[in-house]
């Protein structure tokens, strides 16, 4: 059974905004993630990506996350990752990106670190 990609966003007034991502994060779904991230960034909000429900992440998904982190940084904002699923954690650690990315064990800690 194919896992469907989905995004679930926290309340609009929140900062940081929490985006819960689920399903397969591949080339097609990554573009939706990037678009949503751009919209949040354009409103000047920080972002927490909860990746606990991501069942598969392709290189395009990883690349999109890297680009989003960089874009938020350039905009003077922060983007953090929280509660990595085993699939995400395996690939992130394979690429040694855990040394570079802001990763939190759970969503509450990620949110607390970015709360304005």
């Amino acid at each position, binding site marked *: 059974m194919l896992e469907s990609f989905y995004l679930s966003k926290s309340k609009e007034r929140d900062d940081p905004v929490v985006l819960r991502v689920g399903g397969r994060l*591949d080339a097609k779904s990554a573009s939706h993630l990037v678009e949503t991230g751009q919209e949040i960034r354009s409103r000047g909000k920080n972002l927490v990506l909860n990746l606990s429900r991501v069942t*598969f992440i392709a*290189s395009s998904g990883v690349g999109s996350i890297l680009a989003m982190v*960089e874009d938020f940084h350039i905009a003077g904002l922060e983007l953090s990752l929280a509660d990595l699923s085993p699939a995400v954690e*395996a*690939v992130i650690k*394979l690429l*040694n990106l855990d040394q570079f990315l802001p990763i939190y064990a759970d969503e509450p800690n990620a949110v607390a670190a970015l709360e304005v």
Partner: protein
Amino acid sequence: MIRFLKKLLSPVAGFHVESGRNASNHPGDLMWVANRETARETRHQLQTGDPFCDPLARLTEARTRGRRLSLPIRLESLARIREWLEKNDPFTKLDAGSMHLLAAALHEASANIIEHGYGGTRAGEFELWWVARTGSGNGEDGRLDCRNPLKNSYFLILDHGMAFSADDREETDFMDPEAWRRGRGLGLDIIFRVMTRVAYRPATTQGNITLLAFDPGELTSNERQLRHA
């Protein structure tokens, strides 16, 4: 000198470059192997016992006793790879982390074929095979090493798209902000870090062949470094 020769000979039909940890006596060296059925290749294979030297023999082996997964030429079909692994021994015995990484590497190798070999979604299919070999690595009797059935086995991907090879790849430098902004090119990093051996054999008489060897025992943090450089 090696880079000059690579660029000179790469376009010549039938030549390819392979690199691998076990490909030569000097880890990290590039090994030149002719793709044609030449006497030199046969002698090389006999000398090294290197099964990756003879892609057409590997394809015959796959068709004889391998397990096949046919994949439509569209990225959406690649979700079937994980499903295929999860339904077939010995992959069902993999720990979760190894399964994620194996599925990811095979996904990336296949995605590259769809994107670069076929230019995107097309009618038709390409093939992913898994072939078990003996513990000795010569595959003569086809028996599995039951202690580690994945060892000395290999995956083979056969496609009929445009021929390409990843011999000019460079590992992504994550210290470079441009690499983050670009956000692309990580697929090969995944493939080469997960697989113990990768060999591109484009433009054979049967199509483009990609050979990949996987050993979950090699997936440790110390081993996750650039292989095949």
